């Protein structure tokens, strides 16, 4: 009943009945081929400039980013990062094919593949895309990308192929559409978790990760 009341009230306000079929078709067409709006110039750079801008904004938002020659370099880079942060060499990794095939055996890392529990201090995940205009990661959910792994551990380590760094959000969403449409959950993540609720003063690590470290992979792996 509420549905009819609300729609009816809106139509009364607009001083018309339901839209005629041709106008509905026009609006449906706009949704089927969504027009892009103004995209800032800084979201339209070439590849090298995109990667540089992405890294700059990640660091300005209190994350860290490094470039690695190939996927095979990830385990050593992870081990090194954890040692430098004085963290135990253990982590939960998302069951993504690019991560499952990494040569972890060459390191002392204790890796468990699956969904993180509140006891995991470190996660390793695989980003679908990066967006240069604000240093943002696109992390969709799916069988190879549990959402919890982006949120529960205190330290979020993320693998991102350099080729997947786009200028603007629109490019990343187009690719997501092409890959089969909206998954259950798509997170756009810009820096580590924070709050300014106490006296307007920024503190990192509110409910999500305190540290966000992004490994950008240049080669094919």
């Amino acid at each position: 009943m509420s549905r009819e009341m609300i729609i009816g009230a809106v139509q009364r306000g607009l001083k018309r009945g339901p839209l005629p079929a041709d106008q509905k078709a026009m609006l449906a067409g706009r949704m089927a081929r969504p027009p892009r709006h103004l995209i800032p110039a800084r979201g339209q750079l070439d590849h090298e400039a995109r990667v540089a801008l992405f890294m700059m904004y990640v660091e300005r938002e209190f994350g860290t980013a490094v470039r690695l020659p190939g996927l095979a370099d990830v385990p050593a880079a992870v081990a090194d990062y954890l040692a430098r942060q004085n963290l135990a060499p253990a982590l939960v990794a998302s069951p993504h094919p690019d991560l499952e095939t990494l040569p972890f055996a060459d390191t002392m890392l204790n890796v468990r593949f699956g969904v993180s529990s509140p006891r995991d201090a470190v996660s390793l995940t695989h980003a679908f895309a990066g967006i240069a205009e604000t240093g943002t990661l696109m992390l969709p959910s799916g069988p190879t990308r549990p959402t919890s792994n982006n949120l529960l551990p205190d330290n979020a380590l993320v693998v991102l192929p350099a080729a997947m760094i786009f200028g603007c959000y629109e490019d990343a969403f187009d690719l997501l559409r092409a890959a089969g449409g909206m998954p259950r959950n798509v997170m756009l993540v810009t820096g580590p978790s924070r709050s300014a609720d106490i006296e307007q003063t920024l503190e990192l690590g509110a409910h999500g990760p305190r540290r966000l470290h992004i490994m950008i992979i240049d080669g094919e792996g």
Partner: protein
Amino acid sequence: MLLTTEAFKQNATGAMADAGLQKALARAKPQFAKKRQAAMDKLPEFEALRETAKNIKNHTIANLDFYLETYAAAVEASGGHVHWCATADDARQAVLKICRDAGAKTVTKGKSMVTEEIHLNDYLEANGVTPVETDLGEYILQLRREPPSHIIGPAFHLNREDWEDTFRKVHTDLPADRVFRERRDILTEARGKLRQQFLAADVGITGANFLVAETGSSVIVTNEGNGDLTQTLPRVHVVVTGIEKIVPTIEDTLALLRVLARSATGQDMSVYTTFSTGGRRAGDPDGPQEYHVVLLDNGRSGMVGTPFQDMLRCIRCAACMNHCPVYGAVGGHAYGSTYPGPMGAVLTPMLVGVEAAGQLPNASTFCGKCESVCPVKIPLPNMMRHWRDREFERHLGPPAMRYGLVFWGFFARRPALYRLGTRFMAMGLGFLGAKRGRFSYLAFAGAWTKARDFPAPEGTSFFAQYAARQKAAR
């Protein structure tokens, strides 16, 4: 919380005398404006984006019935459920039913102004379901049983001492002599407490910044990550939001996101911007099994086609209150409404009636700053003027103000009489104040002269001088 908009005047006087509040306001106010300006400076396209954002919202409102139906169909197609609710009571009952069907004892909540608007927490509690606020600011307010005083920084009226006192009083399982050396220690304690709640909750309730008609997605924007934990860990996710949050497509949403965080906190992008579409899919290792949207009207559809239609563009960024001299002087609680500041002064009479909230549109200096910073260009001062008209038409103001306006209006519509009157007034006051050159008390203006002196007029009125000069120039 009871609405106390009738008491705005008393509230404001109290707020001005509240040392703790004044300390918090003095600290926060310049920050908001500075951060927003810094974000503007880094994006030359910002002004053009405001126009884009306004146009997207106007297009949506002009076709709101179509987009609402399309959105609902898309939610159902992705396995979710839409609960249409005409009134606050419908929405409260819909949420309670979902909680009961899920056998929920506790629900975690992400920050949501719509759940504040419908006083959901009190209702759930009265019906045996314990709500737990997880946004840090909302969490401490729930512990203190206070309403939010700002739509994006709910606890910004509190000082550090208040946080420490409250945590000591409530977290009695922790050592009483623990020391909070830094703000971080306060944050860490809350994080620990809330982790347990996230894991124990059966239902998670969030609001929505946008509802995307194209995909049936709800979008939340947070910095803490509490909203994401709220909608990821429990078995059931409930989105409670208003019908005006509809946006046609992802592209439209992205254009609005480009102005939202910059206008709100001065960030280019908030830390977590998350699109949720339905419940857990085949093969998904986590996420909620059920996904519900409680879609609230509560007076919003009645704004379509009225002088207040543009208010439906509001994306709740808080830039208007962050730049408002009245909000800056008295804070959010004085308004006695869920929505304070200029946007609240326009929206509240629509939600609770001009009888109860008529004072709020008067709480403005009409400086116009709110409109100039609004990311969707809502003509807020104009709308407050409309409310003042209605308040006057319906004889809702105090008699002194009404008769004063009638008196002034009589002369204002008779320019010759007005000029004559002001000329005599200037002459009279000039004569009386010639000796001292100022008045420390004036009849009928006692409140004004209480804080400052009124300079005595010297010579003739503005109109007389203007006329004389025009004549001389010819």
